[in-house]
């Protein structure tokens, strides 16, 4: 029983991170109809920038917020410089550009941050919580809390504000959105900034547990993409569910079978889902429910 609970905790911890990455994929997909393969690099940038900012002497909370804001700004710049010039082109071209952009971001990170693994201090010092024979690290509680906060904030933005409604409207019908006065181009920029910010939040939150380095983006990108696909890409609520589910699948596969299986789960999930229901998952942005 306690073994099961331990796997559950580990699964939900990683799953929360995947959920944040998957949300990033979903938001950009809804706005552009394209997959942003640079999403994992935003995760990397969040962690690395946060470490660099603390090196500069910033207190951790300030460094964390600054890293997330800076990454969001980089996301917006990425859209303006790389994606905007080909706006209106096929999603496939946007996908190619994001793949190229990911390589550029990784190389820039190597240049500025160096090749070493870096560690971040936990947000709160202290012993793990113990209950029902399970130990939960305090950082895990931070991950859950921040993920929940981000999901709720995003839901409120989309559901309760005129700006969020305008973002949804643009995702549903871009031309009609323009006809009612929405600056559709800006909505895409904001989508990239939001996605980058969510990725950075995940990168910052998990850095104290796993360490971080310039090259961590690609692997987490695959996980987040698998989670988004599992959730039927385009729907934020199911993207979060997809992230949690992927985390649990990995955790149980590694725990009950073989730790070596952990990283294969995401690929198996991708293949299975794409085989079973490809059309439902690569549906057009018009059917997106945001």
């Amino acid at each position, binding site marked *: 029983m306690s073994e099961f609970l331990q796997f559950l905790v580990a699964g939900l911890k990683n799953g929360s991170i995947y959920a944040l990455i998957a949300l990033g994929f979903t938001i950009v997909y809804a706005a552009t109809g394209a997959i942003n393969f640079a999403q994992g690099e935003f995760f990397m940038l969040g962690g690395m920038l946060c470490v660099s900012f603390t090196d500069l002497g910033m207190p951790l909370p300030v460094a964390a917020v600054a890293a997330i804001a800076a990454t969001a700004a980089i996301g917006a710049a990425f859209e303006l410089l790389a994606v905007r010039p080909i706006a209106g082109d096929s999603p496939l071209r946007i996908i190619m550009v994001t793949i190229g952009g990911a390589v550029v971001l990784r190389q820039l990170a190597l240049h500025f941050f160096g090749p070493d693994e870096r560690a971040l201090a936990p947000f709160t010092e202290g012993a793990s919580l113990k209950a029902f024979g399970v130990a939960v690290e305090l950082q895990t509680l931070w991950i859950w809390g921040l993920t929940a906060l981000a999901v709720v904030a995003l839901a409120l933005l989309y559901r309760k504000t*005129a700006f969020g*409604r*305008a973002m*949804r*409207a643009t995702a*549903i*019908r871009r*031309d*009609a*959105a*323009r*006809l*009612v*006065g*929405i*600056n*559709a181009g800006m909505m895409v920029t904001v989508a990239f900034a939001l996605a980058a910010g969510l990725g950075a939040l995940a990168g910052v939150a998990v850095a104290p547990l796993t360490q971080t380095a310039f090259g961590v983006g690609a692997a987490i990108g695959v996980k987040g993409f698998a989670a988004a696909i599992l959730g039927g890409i385009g729907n934020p609520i199911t993207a979060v569910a997809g992230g949690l589910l992927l985390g649990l699948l990995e955790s149980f596969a590694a725990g009950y079978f073989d730790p070596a299986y952990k990283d294969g789960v995401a690929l198996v999930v991708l293949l299975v889902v794409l085989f079973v229901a490809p059309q439902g998952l690569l549906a057009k942005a018009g059917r997106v*429910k945001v």
Partner: protein
Amino acid sequence: MSEATPLLELASVRAGYGHAEVLHDIDLTVGEGELVAVIGANGAGKSTLLKTIVGLVPVRSGTIAYRGARVATPRPERLVRKGLALVPEGRLLFGPMTVRDNLELGAYGAGRERRAVTTRALARVNELFPVLEERADQPAETLSGGEQQMLAVGRALMSEPRLLLLDEPSLGLAPLVIAEIFSALDELRAQGVTILLVEQDARLALRHADRGSVMRTGRVVLEGPAADLLADESVRTIYLGAWHQEGS
């Protein structure tokens, strides 16, 4: 012809998609308070004309002037803030969103005055189309065709337009619903809204219009007072031609 500057004026406008030019040398004026109808068969370029005016299709040459000022590069998101709204072909509603959300989004361009405009315009839309108030919490895609068209008109009205462009509001609707929509247009005119209406149903459009233009393969081939066009032999031919195409 009135002395005043027309609300909308197109001079020698050319526009199209990719390599194909669809509009050749279009001249068109819409005076303040008028209802002008543009009629023509399938593919004549009527929708392209409206899309060009709002900027969904780029102008290749010629000029468009709105309220006396030249609009160098029309953009829908800017024009709607200046009182020019389009009810597009196919309605283009935000399907999964509720009727109320669709309407409130119609006032998005009002910016800081959004709240006041929303309250005022919503009251007007609900008075014009009471059914929309009953359906307020329903997703737009679940409405009947007629209700969807009313919502499309209502959404455009939420920006409190001075000039309303409509693309075939009668398409695919039952006569009773068409009558309701056109009586709403008459009511809007009485309230001072200027209307540019595109229709395949020439008789219907001209009966409600002050003036009309007949389009054929991207050109205006005939224009004049609506009553004269209704009586014109060649218009009847075109109208019947369109009828045959539709019936085939």
